[in-house]
């Protein structure tokens, strides 16, 4: 790290690490120093590196460094067929892998004019919502652990395993699913799918009450999160934030409402909004989102139709020349797929719009002026997945 040799001498401007904008304050008694957080750090949720400029314990400036898990997915996509690209999206935001798959499938369907049968659409919605709950459960556990409550981690994972087991029966995988295909899904759901979903739904109602009792009104949670890391509505839009991060700041933006895909327009659900955009609002929005997902699952399970789970499979997916865009709402926000096709078997350019990249961008504004412990709470409630940022 570029620390000056003498601690009393203010860092000259040219010695500032890259990305820092502020000049050395030079005020008497200022004790500014730089601290490296990551790339190996338990609360950065992966290999994210934050260079923090601190004055005592107060954060002056934060500069994130990305790319420690940049895996060249977009370059690889140019030499794989469209269906082969699906498995790479699993590994981007691995806690929303079903929904990422869905985004790519929708772009292919849009380009080739493929429809999805009724049962296939229901499977898509139900699996997406299960995935959302599963992802939020993991976030809840990790959030508790970041604030020092290991109990939450164990409780969150215990509930999550039930949904993971269901996914395993569905597609054989616990994490990297690769289940959806253009025109439906890889396989039909197992026979006991609906009873098991209903069982999970009933348990979730009880579990969410339990979780709320455990952590939501906990004085430590509240004092660590309320008024911490506030993001205004205007800044959230300007940064392109999406998902719970944007909604906690009062941006009424949910792709399921804004540009309803699959059959989301048939179900009743609310889009929970926050007012202050602080860590506590982000926490509350996610907790409420799980309830709304439960609502959607209940409605879908009540009218789950019989019939084929997929449309006719094409031997080869060859997209007409042109560019195609699709967007879905993952557990973290808007996941966009932009395909540029030259009419060949493989995409000419394929770009995935990651929600996490935009959600992490305002961290410098959110953390400035707070304590370094608040930075951990902010990172935790942003719920970032680093491989999705780096791709």
């Amino acid at each position: 790290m570029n620390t000056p040799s003498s601690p009393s001498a203010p860092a000259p401007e040219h010695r500032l690490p890259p990305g820092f904008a502020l000049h050395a304050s030079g005020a008497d008694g200022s004790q500014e120093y730089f601290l490296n957080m990551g790339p190996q750090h338990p609360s950065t949720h992966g290999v994210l590196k934050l260079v923090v400029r601190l004055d005592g314990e107060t954060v002056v400036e934060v500069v994130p460094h990305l790319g420690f898990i940049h895996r060249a997915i977009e370059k690889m996509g140019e030499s794989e067929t469209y269906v082969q690209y699906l498995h790479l999206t699993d590994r981007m935001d691995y806690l929303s892998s079903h929904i990422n798959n869905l985004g790519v499938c929708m772009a292919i369907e849009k380009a080739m004019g493929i429809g999805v049968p009724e049962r296939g659409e229901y499977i898509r919605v139900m699996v997406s919502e299960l995935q959302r709950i599963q992802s939020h459960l993991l976030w809840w556990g990790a959030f508790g652990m970041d604030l020092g409550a290991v109990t939450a981690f164990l409780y969150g994972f215990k509930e999550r395993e039930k949904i993971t087991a269901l996914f395993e029966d569905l597609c054989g995988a616990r994490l990297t699913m690769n289940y959806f295909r253009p025109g439906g899904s890889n396989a039909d759901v197992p026979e006991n799918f609906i009873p098991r979903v209903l069982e999970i739904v009933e348990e979730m109602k009880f579990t969410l009450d339990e979780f709320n009792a455990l952590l939501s009104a906990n004085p430590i949670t509240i004092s660590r999160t309320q008024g911490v890391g506030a993001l205004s509505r205007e800044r959230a839009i300007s940064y392109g934030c999406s998902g719970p991060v944007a909604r906690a700041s009062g941006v009424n933006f949910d792709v399921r409402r804004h540009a309803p895909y699959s059959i989301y327009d048939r179900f009743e659900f609310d889009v929970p909004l926050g007012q202050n955009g602080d860590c506590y609002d982000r926490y509350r929005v996610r907790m409420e989102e799980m309830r709304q997902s439960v609502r959607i699952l209940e409605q879908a399970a009540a009218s789950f139709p019989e019939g084929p789970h997929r449309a006719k499979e094409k031997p080869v997916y060859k997209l007409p020349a042109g560019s195609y865009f699709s967007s879905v709402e993952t557990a973290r926000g808007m996941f966009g797929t932009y395909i540029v096709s030259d009419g060949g078997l493989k995409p000419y350019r394929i770009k995935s719009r990651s929600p996490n990249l935009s959600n992490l961008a305002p961290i410098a504004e959110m953390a400035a002026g707070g304590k370094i412990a608040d930075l951990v709470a902010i990172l935790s409630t942003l719920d970032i997945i680093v491989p999705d940022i780096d791709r």
Partner: protein
Amino acid sequence: MIDKSAEFSLPPGLVPPQSGLLQPVDWIVGWARANSLWPLVFGTSCCAIEMMATGASDNDWARFGLEVARASPRQADLIILAGTITEKMGSRLVTLHEQMPGPKYVIAMGACTISGGPFYYDNYSVVKGADRLIPVDVYIPGCPPRPEALLYGVMQLQKLIRAGGWRNSIVHRPVNVSPITDPMAETLKEWEVIEAKKQEEMKEAKERFKLENPDYKGVVIKRIVAPKYDEVAPTPRPERGLAQAEIFANLSERFPSLRVHALPEKSAEKVADNVAEVATETSVEKPIETVTEKITAMGREYVLDVAVEPADYLPLIRHLRDDTDLQLDYLIELTAIDWKDRYDVVVHLLSTDKGHKVFVRCALPHVEAPEIESLSSLFAGANWHEREAYDFFGIRFTGHPDLRRLFLEDDFPGHPLRKDFEYPERVVKRPY
């Protein structure tokens, strides 16, 4: 002492040696060390979630004496490499390994850390096996491996440690220095030899069978019939907000040079055959009335895709953002396309209030350092998107406050998403 006559007996590794002076000490040290592993908190990607699941309530790795995961390498003696190792992370991983006090052990969890896994081919950033950087003791295949597999891997490591005792525990083990090759091509070559041998043996066997069973008529093979599915008509999904023709009318008033990018072909039959044809595709240049009619004919599912001259680029985006009717206040993404003879900078905008989208593209000459104005004064989020486009395509955004590479190392040679990018030292081309 173990009673040999008893029906139950411990497996050999768990029985303390009965002779010698140092052997029992070895055994005790090995036993203690194997059952008090201190793993480092090191997860880079997907496998980390399975590692967390292994530590959580259902699988509970505390049963095997390794629940004390440490965040500092100085307190740990085991790295579970959970997730892909990239070149940028590589030097940090070596540092972490060096910071651990010996004896130290490494488990490679998942396909990426074994060989690069799904990221082996056409990849300029992933290390092809973590054992090229640090010595690895146990490999666990899977993508990701299940928690049970990780527990099995840990038990294998414990077996190794118990066998090793204390005397040979701090050994400098070599790392993998074999040249990076194309395993697919090598395997195919090996297969050819095996296949030829197999064919020969089959031929012999068939002849022998014919001689032994002259009356054999053969069997009818019943194939499993795959279920047939019908084609389904796509559901129309109209775009929300303002009609695309309305948006175009608004824009063409102020920006007469604006053109609509080639309207996508609706029929799948008209598929372009090669890249060159597409690369030279020109935008539609017709009187506005016809273009508006054409846009209206595309229906409500079509999203307006306009091509703008570099001079009008920033004013157009500013107008799109600030116009009271349009209100395109949300930057979905900013990226680029390399068309081999030009670069297209592509900007996707959305109105959070009304819901309509507009795609803007701006062609730049295909030179080493193409330049365009930065949008970071309009959208705070454009900062990182532009840094990404600079990193991948080498497009310079003038007026950008901090134009550095976003993902790759500063000394990375070239811009990887350019079509003419080559990096033979790292990239193995996909053989199929």
